[in-house]
């Protein structure tokens, strides 16, 4: 850790509740700039909530969460989009737009409104998009309608948009859970490689623990909204992972509820 360089993310006694349910109990976490961190844990452990808080999509109910030294909520939209960006499980692209425009949307945080509107008609920066699409393995596909692409290809478009946005920290919420194993591995590999090449901090939630162990430097395990363990990926043991995902008697009793909730 370098002196005077604020951590990418710093959570202190961070809390989030949805009604009566506690999504995150007081949680402390520090992620340095340039780290690659995998969030693992069972469904409902708070991974998505934590990522949404990091992206500024949710506001904390207690404690604080700092992004590069400043509370996430204090950054204005343009400032925040230069520092943190996110890709989701369901890609979250606009299906009726071309691949080109979906990727160009990564510029919306730095473009003026006039430029953004002009670019819908006469796209600005098509050359850069072509380069980024080549990086994610979609060269020459810019003019296609996004809904025509397969799931794996759409997730690469979402990654391309994130690369064009080029924020300091890249967040990924279950980025590969709707892909088959081979495509999932390829996409995680690509994500980690591009993040490290660009000097980005990377935080990704994954439900495949093997992907987390093989591709990330550090693993943070969440259970019931709190950190269960947090260490270098190489040091995580199989016994610990078994503990993390083991159903407790109470969980089994409420298993039906948990299943319906998870749909």
């Amino acid at each position, binding site marked *: 850790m370098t002196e005077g360089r604020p951590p990418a993310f710093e959570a202190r006694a961070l809390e989030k509740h949805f009604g009566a349910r506690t999504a995150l109990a007081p949680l402390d976490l520090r992620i340095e700039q340039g780290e690659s961190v995998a969030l693992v844990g069972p469904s409902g452990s708070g991974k998505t909530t934590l990522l949404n808080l990091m992206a500024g999509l949710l506001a904390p109910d207690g404690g604080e969460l700092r992004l590069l030294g400043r509370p996430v909520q204090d950054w204005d939209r343009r400032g925040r989009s230069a520092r943190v960006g996110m890709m989701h499980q369901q890609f*979250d692209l*606009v299906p*009726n737009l071309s691949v080109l425009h979906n990727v160009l949307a990564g510029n919306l945080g730095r*473009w003026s409104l006039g430029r953004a509107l002009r670019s819908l008609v006469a796209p600005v920066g098509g050359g850069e998009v072509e380069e980024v699409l080549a990086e994610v393995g979609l060269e020459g596909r810019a003019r296609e309608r996004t809904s025509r692409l397969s799931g794996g290809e759409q997730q690469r478009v979402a990654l391309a948009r994130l690369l064009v946005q080029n924020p300091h920290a890249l967040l990924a919420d279950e980025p590969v859970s709707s892909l088959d194993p081979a495509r999932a591995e390829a996409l995680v590999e690509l994500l980690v490689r591009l993040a490290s090449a660009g000097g980005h901090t990377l935080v990704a939630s994954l439900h495949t623990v093997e992907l987390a162990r093989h591709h990330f430097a550090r693993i943070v395990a969440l259970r019931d909204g709190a950190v269960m363990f947090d260490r270098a990926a190489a040091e995580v043991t199989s016994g610990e992972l078994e503990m993390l995902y083991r159903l407790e008697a109470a969980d089994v009793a409420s298993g039906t509820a948990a*299943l319906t909730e998870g749909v």
Partner: protein
Amino acid sequence: MTRRPVELPAVAARALDGRPAPGGRGVLTVILLLTLGWTAFQVDWGDAVPRTGGLGVLRSLLGGIVRPDLSSETLSRAVEATWLTIVYAVAGLTLALALGLPLGVMASGAIAPPRVRRASMVVGRGVLAAMRAVHELVWAWLFVVAVGLSPAAAVLAIGIPYGGILGRIYADLLNDLPEAPLRALRVAGAGRIEALAYGRVPMTLPDLVAYTFYRFECALRASAIMGFVGLGGLGFEIQIALADLDYRQVGTYLAALVLLIAAVEAWSALVRNEVAR
């Protein structure tokens, strides 16, 4: 498929609360059906065809539709009247778009800052409701009284209520959208107007176009109706032909109206295909 954790049980609970209980819905259905049945008895049906000789008129009318007047004089009048009907409809719908688009966006609350979002929706929806509360034919009477038998009266009479209808539908379409792609745009740094341009409008474009075309079709019919208050067009010709008891001419003008609507439908299908591709 149980992996996506539910992060918003509060929202889900609210959605469930808003749904009436199954028993309550059944009661509602019975009440609605009873109301429907009751209204049938409230109509004074009298005799189905009260005028003596009415059946004969109906027969002549049908005969006219089967054998329309195809003389060059009638045909050229039909073409002229059709053209006038199209012009009123296009001008009226253009005005409706100019009014309905901005008011619809306002009523959707999509680009209003959070503080004034409610106000924007209430005012927008109120104005749109007032515009469409009055039927186009009533607007036509009002404008004929105000500005006389001029094309402006017809255009205004179509443009105002249709603007209200279009705006209302646009507002609903722009509001009722999957949240996820919009959230992703927000994280990418999009403001409300950027999210409208890069998210809401493209996501709803096929519906926006299809509905606008449907309204254009309605505008053509409304434009033909304008003839009955003396503003010219197919309705005017039909009225005169009826007064002359020339049912074959009536048939010609009705056929022109049918052809016109069919042509618009074909054009609309073409454009919808283009947008959906």
